[in-house]
């Protein structure tokens, strides 16, 4: 990244009580990216986030915004800066003495020159997007944990901020909701281009939506890089941490996790190079037809992906590996298969989808249209894995489309 970072932490240190929570943190956060901050419990992730927004001041070091230190800013500049931020608290921090609607409206209502109709409209929009119906006049204490999380998200996003800091936005949600919230954050980020910092324990799910990952350990940044980098880092401490949290199966779909899939890919590549045994990969993505506004839409897509994964497993051989490749994408590695056979595998799945509607199931997901696209590519001994995946990504064709 050549552009100068939006936020830069330089040697930030903080002692709370007798604990030196941050001990010289250096971190850059780039504009328009989602940066995930991971680390053990109590390693100072939330404290770091509070330093970024200015709830805590560093004992040493400085925090630069667009190259300027906050401590050198005048009070009006600080105020203007703070308005660009939003913060989603771990424990939601909703106000008990206000109703849900008042909670979401508060950041807008307390601003000078707020027009009540405009506020109402924006609050209503956000509540609809997060599928919060019939709770307008309830107190947050009457809501379930998952609903509170969504109200907190609505309150943070209603101001249309530039920079959103999420402190464990998905902790305590079920796998489908978790993925739906991730998918929504990533979708928002693509559409509105905000800069996100997400403190999370959801490994590897968070890697699907983050462009950068930073791991904090003993008050310092132990690792900083892309999600691909962190999964291949030689640093054992970091690997142990990630692998410790990552289960071999993706919790939502039940298929293999990304790291297991990557292992298989490497093994197949080795077999191809040594014994000339061919293999193919298929990337299958499930996408909603148009923009998904509401979290129910994101949830429906995740639920469909889960169901779709079952179909893929039913149609594949024991030696095939399918794994979660991205938030909406499943990759299937087909050993001893050439491209023609791989395409027929796709057609077979497409036929089963025609016979068995993914929707006719027990749970109450909303009926939405979706598009299944697949990219098929046969590996060549001289090509690298990245090239192979890039080829599959660019070769997408729609192979099944469902109407709502």
């Amino acid at each position, binding site marked *: 990244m050549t552009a100068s970072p939006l936020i830069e932490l330089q040697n930030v240190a903080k002692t709370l009580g007798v604990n030196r929570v941050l001990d010289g943190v250096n971190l850059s956060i780039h504009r328009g990216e989602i940066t995930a901050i991971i680390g053990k419990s109590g390693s100072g992730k939330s404290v770091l986030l509070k330093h970024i927004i200015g709830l805590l001041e560093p004992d040493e070091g400085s925090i630069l915004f667009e190259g300027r230190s906050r401590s050198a800013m005048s009070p009006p500049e600080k105020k203007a800066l703070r308005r660009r931020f939003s913060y989603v*608290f771990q424990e939601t921090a909703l106000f008990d003495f206000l109703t849900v609607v008042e909670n979401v409206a508060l950041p807008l209502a307390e601003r000078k020159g707020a027009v009540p109709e405009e506020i109402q409209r924006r609050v209503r929009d956000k509540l609809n997007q997060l599928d919060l119906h019939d709770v307008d006049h309830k107190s947050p204490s009457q809501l379930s944990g998952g609903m509170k999380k969504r109200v907190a998200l609505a309150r943070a996003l209603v101001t249309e901020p530039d920079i959103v800091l999420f402190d464990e936005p998905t902790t305590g949600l079920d796998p489908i909701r978790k993925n739906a919230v991730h998918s929504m954050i990533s979708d928002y980020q693509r559409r509105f281009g905000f800069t996100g910092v997400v403190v999370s324990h959801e490994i590897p799910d968070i890697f699907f939506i983050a462009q950068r990952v930073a791991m904090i350990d003993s008050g310092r940044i132990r690792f900083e890089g892309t999600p691909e980098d962190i999964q291949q880092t030689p640093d054992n401490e970091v690997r142990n941490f990630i692998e410790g949290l990552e289960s071999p199966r993706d919790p939502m779909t039940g298929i293999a996790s990304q790291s297991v899939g990557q292992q298989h890919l490497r093994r197949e590549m080795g077999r191809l190079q040594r014994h000339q045994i061919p293999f193919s990969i298929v990337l299958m993505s499930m996408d909603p037809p148009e923009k998904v506004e509401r979290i129910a839409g994101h949830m429906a897509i995740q639920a469909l992906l889960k169901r779709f994964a079952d179909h893929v497993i039913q149609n594949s051989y024991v030696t095939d590996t399918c794994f979660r490749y991205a938030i909406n994408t499943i990759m299937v590695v087909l050993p001893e298969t050439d491209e023609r056979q791989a395409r027929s595998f796709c057609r077979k799945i497409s036929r089963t989808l025609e016979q068995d509607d993914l929707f006719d199931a027990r749970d109450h997901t909303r009926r939405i249209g979706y598009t299944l696209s697949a990219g098929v590519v046969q590996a060549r001994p001289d090509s690298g894995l990245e090239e192979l995946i890039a080829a599959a990504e660019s070769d997408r064709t729609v192979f099944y489309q469902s109407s709502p």
Partner: protein
Amino acid sequence: MISLVTLKTPVAALGREVLSLTRYLGRVFLFFARGFLLIFQPPIQFDKIRQQIFFIGMKSVFVICLTAAFTGMVLGLQGYYALVKYGSTAALGSAVALSLVREMGPVLTAIMVIARAGSAMAAEIGIMRISEQIDALKTMDINPLRYLISPRIAAALVCFPLLTAIFDVVGLFGGYLSGSALLGVNPAFYFSRAQSSVETGDIVGGFIKALVFAVVTVTICCFQGYYTHTRAEFGAKGVSISTTSAVVISCVLVLLTDYVLTTFLL
């Protein structure tokens, strides 16, 4: 030989205590001053002040009336048996009215409001602190002092004198009930003595006390809640200690300032 250090230690300790007390008082004063000045920052938060007046004032009326009635009755009773020895039961009205207007009214009102609203204030603000709601206000660029503390200060300044007035009136009738209706002091004497002995100065003095108690109570209770997170104890334990110390400190300070004010007002 006693070393110099041994001699210096108690002095140094005393100095440290005095300094930390001064610093604490300074912080409390600044907390109040900021909260008070922010009342007038436009737009004035009439809605929130109204809600707090309802909470601190309106909801305290019943308990104030109850306390006032029994205080007045006891004053009537005690006064009667003290005065009857000298055959001057006619002075009962003066005795009851003066002790109510000058002392009992403002002090007992303050103590009842501390028990009812002050403790609730400390607990509510303390919970908001530990559940990061105060931090959340800051992240939304809302000044927590203006949003949470200023309306409470404004409401207390309105409510305390009014509640004190209610206390005085109800107490006077309580005295009438036990002194005249029960023990037979002539009601005409009772009320005319009450009326003639209470001067404007007494009433103004009582109101000044009420205003000072309002400031002391609301500042201490909000301050204790607001700084719950700086305690050694965390979570619910911290809030419970905040609430207890809010009640204890503000009660003690009310009685202490009462003495100081009385010496000046008399």
